[in-house]
């Protein structure tokens, strides 16, 4: 059991790291892209642009979250 917990923790740290919102956000953005692909009437050329914009927003959101975390810690 201890080995399994250690194994899972290792892969969590390796892939997710110290900013879980990056991993969650990136997967959510790709999920939205996959959803759009399966939606009728959506132009396929539009999907890469949505994902690229989403990735930028995920990064910006994570940076803002870090600024807020630090402000709270300073108070």
């Amino acid at each position: 059991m201890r080995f399994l917990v250690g194994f899972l923790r290792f892969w969590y740290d390796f892939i997710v790291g110290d900013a879980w919102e990056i991993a969650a956000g990136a997967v959510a953005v790709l999920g939205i892209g996959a959803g759009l692909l399966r939606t009728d009437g959506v132009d396929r050329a539009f999907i890469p642009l949505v994902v690229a914009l989403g990735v930028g927003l995920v990064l910006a959101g994570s940076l803002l979250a870090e600024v807020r975390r630090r402000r709270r810690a300073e108070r």
Partner: protein
Amino acid sequence: MHMTAATLGLAAATFLASAVEFVEAFTIVLAMGLTRSWRAALTGTASALLALTAVTAIAGVALIQWISESMLQLVIGTLLLLFGLQWLRTSILRAGGLLTLRDERAAFRAEQEASRLAGHQVHLGLDWTAFVISFKGVFLEGLEVAFIVITFGLSATRYNPHGLLVASGSAVLAGLLVVAVGVIARRPLSAVPENTMKYAVGLLLTSFGTFWAVEGLGYFGSGESLTWPGQDWAILGLVVGGLGVSRLAIAGLRRTSETSRAAG
């Protein structure tokens, strides 16, 4: 071998990413070697390199044999995107003054201090603390290099049949260069502009990761890879867009840091 711009980009990105990781691993091994035992530190390093070779070979073969092209693009693109965003985030926070810049000399002193405080256990005739810390340091830093080599190398095989060879060669070259410079200097490689390299690599990994992950989304549609407007030129657009967004973020964070310092 015909060297195209894409191949040179692949070689440069893999070389930079590997060099950053090898510098960090070198600091750990050097601290263990100088403080405790060179024999244990080097045995730990060699064992980690063997384990990494096995993991890389198994993961590489598994990815090629069992996964369709679009699924492969989705898996490797997503992994690159996650690594790239983490690296980019860290380097933006450092450049913006919210995180302290990584200092190899400080990391070296911390490793030395920790190794002095650790007990003295001997297994298989080796100083076990030096062996385990060297093994973990090289394996963990090397695993990231292995993933980057596999993902970049396999993806580049579309443009260049020797993509995996170029990626592996670049990583080996970076490793040899770091070790050679480190052996000559016999001290942590603090002069390496590690944070700038991490920023550049983060930008490249994020751009290539976004590109391949989107192509891989085709797995959920017809099964064929999705194409970007402008095809491969879109990578350049992603790099330029990422550069613009990150410079804006750094400027904004610097203003925030200065305001906080002035208020504090």
